[in-house]
């Protein structure tokens, strides 16, 4: 499963619920697969998608927030996992697409080939943690978590891919913000 396939599969299940997506190809793929007002594309500020999502989850307890993160992104803001685990928002669903490389900058390795991010999240007080590596299990897990309380982590192991490259996001940051704020 490549990232774009995994993202397609996830958004079909998530529907109109808000998604905060990390910079680089994660946001670009999401925008190409299914652009919606309730997608917040984080274009810069690598590492902070989970923190932005935490702020939103704390202030909107009746809505569920999905964070689309990457291995490089979360490794840059690991402290965030401890803050999330301490505050324990029930409406926080963290999906990390893990290819063990910084694909956006030319496929340099990250540490996630050796270090298990799922174990870190479990140690950080996440309520439920999963690793999936194929479409069938990913789909089953998304169904399973619908009635569970967060914070929840799904670590999605994806294949590295050099062929399919999504375009840069053409929507202006101000527009992304304004339409997202109206949607929540």
């Amino acid at each position: 499963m490549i990232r774009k396939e995994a993202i397609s599969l996830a958004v079909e299940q998530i529907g109109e619920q808000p998604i905060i997506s990390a910079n680089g190809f994660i946001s670009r793929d999401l925008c190409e697969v299914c652009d919606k007002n309730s997608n917040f594309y984080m274009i810069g500020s690598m590492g902070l998608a989970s923190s932005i999502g935490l702020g939103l989850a704390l202030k909107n307890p009746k809505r569920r927030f999905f964070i689309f993160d990457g291995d490089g992104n979360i490794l840059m803001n690991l402290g965030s996992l401890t803050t999330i685990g301490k505050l324990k928002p029930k409406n926080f669903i963290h999906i990390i697409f893990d290819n063990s490389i910084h694909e956006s900058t030319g496929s340099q390795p990250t540490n996630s080939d050796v270090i298990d991010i799922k174990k870190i999240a479990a140690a950080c007080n996440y309520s439920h943690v999963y690793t999936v590596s194929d479409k069938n299990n990913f789909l089953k897990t998304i169904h399973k978590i619908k009635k569970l309380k967060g914070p929840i982590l799904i670590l999605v192991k994806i294949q590295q891919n050099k062929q399919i490259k999504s375009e840069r996001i053409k929507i202006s940051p101000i527009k992304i913000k304004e339409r997202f704020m109206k949607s929540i």
Partner: protein
Amino acid sequence: MKETIQKKVFNYLLKNGIKNFVGVPDSTMKYFIDEGLKKNKIFITTREEEAIGIAVGMTLSQSNSLVFMQNAGFANSLSTITSLVQLYEIPMIFLLGWRGFLQNDAIEHTKIGKIQPKLLQALSLQSKILNEKNWKASCDWAIKSIKEKKLCVLILKRDFLD
């Protein structure tokens, strides 16, 4: 700044619509933070950038936020300020402890204390230095700034040595 004034600053901002106080502690503003902790309004984060990210999420939820930090943490956050807060035009207040303001402050504060005004200027950030006379007017200015959808900075001088 005196304990009593720091507490007044916190309560004034809270009373005037600032709902969230997120950041990394600084002894320069110890009493400000203590007052917030007492009222259960403070979120302590692991890094300043994380605090800014959380405050962005809260502001996107129409909930006004202040991020407090040392000037060392401000320096850590430059890219987050330019590529998130300013890029998306997210209004919020930064409360910044000016370490290295005194000539004989600890050596690790000297350089950052010296270049802080230039850093603020380079980022085109509007700021006001709080003191015991102007604190209320400065807080009013900050509250007005975020109503106008701007990022603004309040500064507390570190006027003691420890």
